[in-house]
């Protein structure tokens, strides 16, 4: 469960302060698929970075599974990111000159325990996103869609509770977009919490809940039409 209370974030640059998030309060239950929408510059990525413990708010509280995140030191926050959160970024953020398999294994380097069957496990996860024949390819030898699937496999390797995706289809063509979104839907059905930040209504349409960021505040939009439609079937 993700519990956000009164989160504020102000950026100060050259003595000019810009308030990006204004008292955001949000509860995301375990297993939910949530889309956070908003136009460019509304603070979607800032909010995702705060939920992912990559950034700290100016004010407010964040609880992950009942743990007050801001009571933790930097090492504990790193461990929490490693264990509980899987990130999928718009730019993929894979290590260059590194194979798909090595990229997927990366989070295990920082895990408390390195599993004996790490490589087999990573291969299995890569196969689950349809990359069984691309494991030894270097990241820069893969297409955008394949790179994003490697990033998803990397996000899944530690079996996290939450997948945080920031514009995950922003750099993909329509075919790859559909593939990635289908993977998210499958992960959601497996019981994972998915939080997707996007400006694309079609991407948001895959989520259970859509929230919209406007003027630094969060508005509950509506339930996903796609899910409603699938419920009608």
């Amino acid at each position: 469960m993700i519990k956000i209370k009164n989160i504020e974030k102000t950026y100060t640059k050259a003595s000019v302060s810009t308030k990006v998030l204004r008292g955001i309060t949000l509860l995301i239950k375990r297993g939910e698929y949530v889309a956070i929408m908003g136009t460019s510059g509304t603070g979607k990525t800032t909010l995702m970075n705060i939920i992912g413990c990559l950034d700290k708010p100016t004010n407010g509280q964040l609880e992950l599974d009942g743990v007050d995140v801001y009571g933790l030191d930097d090492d504990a926050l790193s461990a929490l990111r490693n264990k509980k959160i899987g990130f999928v970024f718009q730019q993929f953020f894979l290590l260059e000159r590194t194979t798909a398999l090595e990229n997927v294994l990366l989070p295990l380097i920082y895990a408390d325990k390195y599993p004996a069957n790490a490589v087999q496990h990573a291969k299995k996860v890569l196969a689950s996103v349809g990359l069984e024949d691309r494991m030894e390819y270097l990241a820069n030898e893969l297409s955008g869609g394949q790179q994003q699937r490697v990033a998803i496999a990397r996000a899944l390797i530690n079996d996290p509770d939450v997948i945080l995706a920031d514009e995950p289809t922003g750099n993909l063509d329509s075919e790859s977009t559909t593939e990635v979104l289908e993977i998210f839907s499958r992960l959601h059905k497996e019981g994972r919490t998915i939080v997707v930040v996007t400006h694309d209504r079609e991407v948001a349409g895959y989520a259970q809940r859509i929230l919209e960021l406007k003027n630094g505040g969060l508005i509950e939009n509506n339930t996903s039409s796609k899910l409603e439609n699938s419920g009608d079937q």
Partner: protein
Amino acid sequence: MTRIVRIARESFRMIGGNKLRVFIMMLGMAVGVVSLTMMICVSKGAYEKVMDIVNRQGPDLLQVRPGTDKHTGLPSGSRDVVSLIEEDVDAIFQHVGNILNAAPVKDRKEIEVKYGDKFTLTRIFGITPEWSQIRDFSSRKGEFISEEDLSFAARVCLIGQTVKENLFGAADPIGQIIRIKDVPFTVKGELEWKGISSAGRDRDDRIVIPITTFTKRLFRDIYLTQIVISVKDTEKIDRTIEDVRAVLRERHKIADGEPDDFVMRTPQDLIALAYGTTRSLINLLTGIAGVSLLVAGLVITNIMLASVAARRNEIGIRRALGARKNDILSQFVIECLLISLMAGILGTILGFGGSIILSSMRVAASKVTPLALAASLMSCSLIAIVFSIYPAKKAANQSPVEALRA
């Protein structure tokens, strides 16, 4: 697999990422290590040479020669100065403690010696039986000079191995008659093999005869060319030197403020002589090694800082995936350590090569020693750690979000 091993493996994997960076870092370090290795090998070579000389001459050996050391700054005897006589030896025995043995020596160079139709020019030493123990020169075959030979000024001799080779070849010289300055001498024995001295002199090209025979039958000269002394306790050798000096100055009636009319050569002088020019080479190599390694350290810091700036994105990704600050710090330090160790091994190999070349060119005695490898690897490790800490900390302290935005 422990966390640090995983991070070390990751460091090793990332080294291949920028070959130019690795090459530049290795270059500076390798130059320093080459100098360091050569310095250690030359030092070791010089040390072994010194110890060899000291051991051959004896760490308990004092040599007193006539002459002064005004010109060279080092003790050196002079044949032109006559000051030592056999009574000086007796006085030293009587008045100086810590003396185990003392013996007078007379010698002459390039004396013609004949055997049948063969002849050679060699050095003749007039000695007493004590000389054998003091200089560790015993007979290889036959017998040494005895007290009886001394008393009767017997015309007997022992010949060195070079003399034997020149006059007798493979034949047995014992009992044969040779002529020294046309005076017949019976070969009583062969001296044991001694090799080349520190001054490059053939120590086997000599003949020893009783000192009395030397004076009465060959040269009629009362002055000694040397007094050799062995001490009981080498720890007290400095005191003994002063005592011998005082006795000789008094006997030679040398006024206060006047220089000695003799010089004393101690094991310390031998060490100074043996190090000689090698010391300046060692100093030069030490300087080059120090400056090179310092420069290599500064190069490491600069390249690492540039690398941290270029790899901000990678740092952000690793932090997002759960790397702690210490993991990032360790990764960068280990990367630097591995590169430095590779440079260390390469530099040591090149340094060994350089030392062998120095040795073969007779610039300096050098000895390839594992100590150089150990010292090089330790220096490299130390420099790598010290000079990479700052950039590695800078990498570790980056905010994950800022790093990802880079």
